[in-house]
């Protein structure tokens, strides 16, 4: 059965159409755009907070988008167990909204980085990863200036103890080392999940790694894992 994905559009979102295209045209799902000023999630099964520069990244990335009317609906939806994926700026919004713990600092190089990276899957027991059959790292692009994940020590310990770290930056053969950390993130963290397991935030862009014409399709594995789980 086709799922209904809702892609939230903020002023300054720029990966909303990438998400729409990949989910609709490549993965053959139903997709709706949801305007940030609306409250109605239109009975979507999954909400995507896409990448971009919501509100120009003014103040802090995601800080102002977090107060958009639709975010209250997304928080309620997540609290009822609804599935939410925040990608890049969407991840930053989830952090600011308190749906995930921590904060993004500027990349330690101070540069905006746009290139392909490899992701080691650190937790295969999530709805976003448990149908991924390969043990190889996933290849997909990052494109951010503030992706340097930081949190206090207690929160970091809790993330580790609860297996909430889902993706780490790695080499193409899965080594998680400083050398493969593009932005200075604590423990090479690239993606985390909430304790309940229904809200995923990740800096890399799976929606930009779905169409084979782009030379990489590992992003499909994450979406397909979720789609299979919901359909079962």
């Amino acid at each position, binding site marked *: 059965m086709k799922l209904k994905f809702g892609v939230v559009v903020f002023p300054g979102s720029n990966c909303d159409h990438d998400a729409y295209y990949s989910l609709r045209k490549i993965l053959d799902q139903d997709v709706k755009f949801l305007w940030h000023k609306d409250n109605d999630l239109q009975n979507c099964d999954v909400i995507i907070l896409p990448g971009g520069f919501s509100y120009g990244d003014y103040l802090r990335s995601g800080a102002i988008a977090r107060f958009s009317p639709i975010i209250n609906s997304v928080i309620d939806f997540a609290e009822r167990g609804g599935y939410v994926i925040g990608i890049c700026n969407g991840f930053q919004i989830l952090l600011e909204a308190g749906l995930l713990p921590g904060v993004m*600092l500027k990349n330690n190089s*101070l540069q905006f980085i746009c290139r392909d990276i490899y992701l080691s899957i650190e937790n295969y027991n999530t709805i976003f990863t448990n149908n991924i059959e390969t043990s190889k790292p996933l290849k997909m692009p990052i494109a951010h200036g503030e992706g340097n994940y930081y949190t206090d020590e207690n929160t970091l310990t809790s993330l580790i103890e609860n297996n909430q770290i889902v993706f780490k930056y790695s080499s193409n053969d899965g080594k998680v080392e400083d050398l493969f950390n593009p932005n200075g993130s604590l423990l090479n963290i690239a993606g985390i999940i909430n304790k309940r397991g229904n809200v995923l935030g990740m800096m890399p862009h799976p929606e930009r790694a779905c169409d084979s014409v782009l030379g990489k399709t590992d992003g499909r594995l994450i979406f397909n894992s979720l789609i299979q789980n919901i359909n079962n």
Partner: protein
Amino acid sequence: MFKAKVLIKRRLSILDPQGQAVEKGAIHLGLNNIKETRIGKYIEFLVELDDETKASTEVDEYCRKLLANPIIEDYEFHLEKIS
């Protein structure tokens, strides 16, 4: 009415790569005595209230919930009575 002046500083325990990069500029300027440059934010705005306690409560909420991120930043503010 009050004018609020807010100063937001990144906690000392948090690395400030922006400050470090700017300080490299100081070295290129030949200013070798500049150390530990850290970059924060200064924000000012008006509060349309006459009661200072109420104004202070509102400014504090603005700082805590939006202007500063308490995970990495500390803030302080000052209210100035204007007619």
